[in-house]
């Protein structure tokens, strides 16, 4: 089964309400603070991007649905800080120990921000299994589609594309597998492909016979046809 964040294709959300191009980058000051605190904590090196995504996905469906975007970020961050032992529950309640933390020397300094953002965090890796598929080849996404390594674990195969036939569009290279990386099970890099699906294979009422959806999918998500 899936989690609440896996909402592609869901019915009932109503219209999209685009704010204008000149709307502020951060609608509220605290949105900017939430983003900055989250990025700064990431620099402590206690987790990776897959871990932090999974922390937001593990919010209860009730919280995920009622929280605004940056509330999800800050709540996922608080949960992760406690889970990884950086903070204690007492700390969050204002009853924690005073003084500098053992990780304080790793704190991101202002003078290093530009370099850290410019450096990024590439996900491609050398090695890993050889590509099994070639562009144009027909494939099917595996059933069931949930994480095979960890029950209820992180995955990037959306439910709406599970068991669907598609065609390899391109090979992106060999990338870290989130299903493993999110759980401290190693990077387990695999070939990553862009796979195109006819909209009519995903939806009973596709809007147009020529429309397509493309997803980036790891080799172990795919089976040959």
């Amino acid at each position, binding site marked *: 089964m899936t989690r609440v964040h896996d*909402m592609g*294709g869901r019915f009932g959300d109503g219209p999209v309400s685009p704010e204008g191009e000149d709307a502020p980058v951060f609608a509220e000051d605290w949105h900017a603070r939430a983003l900055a605190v989250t990025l700064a904590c990431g620099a402590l090196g206690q987790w990776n991007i897959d871990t932090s995504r999974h922390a937001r996905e593990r919010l209860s469906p009730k919280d995920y649905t009622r929280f605004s975007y940056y509330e999800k970020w800050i709540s996922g961050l608080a949960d992760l800080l406690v889970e990884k032992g950086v903070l204690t529950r007492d700390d969050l309640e204002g009853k924690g120990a005073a003084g500098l933390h053992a990780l304080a020397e790793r704190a991101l300094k202002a003078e290093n921000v530009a370099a850290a953002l410019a450096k990024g965090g590439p996900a491609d890796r050398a090695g890993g299994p050889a590509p099994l598929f070639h562009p144009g080849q027909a494939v099917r996404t595996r059933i069931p589609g949930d994480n095979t390594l960890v029950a209820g674990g992180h995955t990037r195969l959306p439910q709406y594309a599970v068991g669907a036939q598609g065609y390899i569009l391109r090979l992106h290279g060999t990338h870290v597998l989130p299903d493993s990386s999110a759980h401290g099970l190693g990077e387990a890099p695999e070939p990553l492909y862009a796979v195109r699906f006819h909209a009519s294979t995903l939806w009973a009422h596709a809007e147009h016979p020529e429309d397509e959806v493309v997803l980036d999918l790891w080799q172990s998500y795919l089976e040959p046809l």
Partner: protein
Amino acid sequence: MPHDHPDHPHALLPPDPALRVKALETILTEKGLIDPAALEEIIDTYQNRIGPQNGARVVARAWSDPDFRAALLADADPVLADLGYYGRQGEHMVVVENTLQQHNMVVCTLCSCYPWPLLGIPPGWYKSDAYRARAVREPRKVLAEFGVTLPPETAVRVWDSTAEVRYLVLPMRPEGTESLGEDQLAALVTRDSMIGTGLAKVPS
């Protein structure tokens, strides 16, 4: 283990989101785990320095320089790195070109993946449940909500950003812009046209 918590630690922080952020920021600052000056630097970067103006420069150059366009579409990463547009959330870029036959549109149904070095922080609608849920199933109805209607001969290809690859749409160059230079062209390139929910502006 996925560690589902019956009592999530975040519930120990104040319920009001602004106060929740403030409380966490204060705790982390007191422990030396975050530097307030670094937070200001991060915010200034994404509020004032990195945004859709970067992507617009790339599009204007692609419209003006066929060799650049060909290189960008073939392998975007080295081309963008040369321009200084490599970085966080843009480590693996693919540029997809709109034509009369095919209109490209980008979404992240699972979270909010977006090419930060070229477009900055995603707008609220991109992160909304409605966009994430509907863009893959009924892109044409979503486009209509942005005021975009495509001709029936144009197929829609929606890119769901499920990995660390980030997509930038190269919109079609508007007619009547043959005499314009790159700066003038860049002014026609909207953020939404590079996500695929809009078209480039027509010069007035």
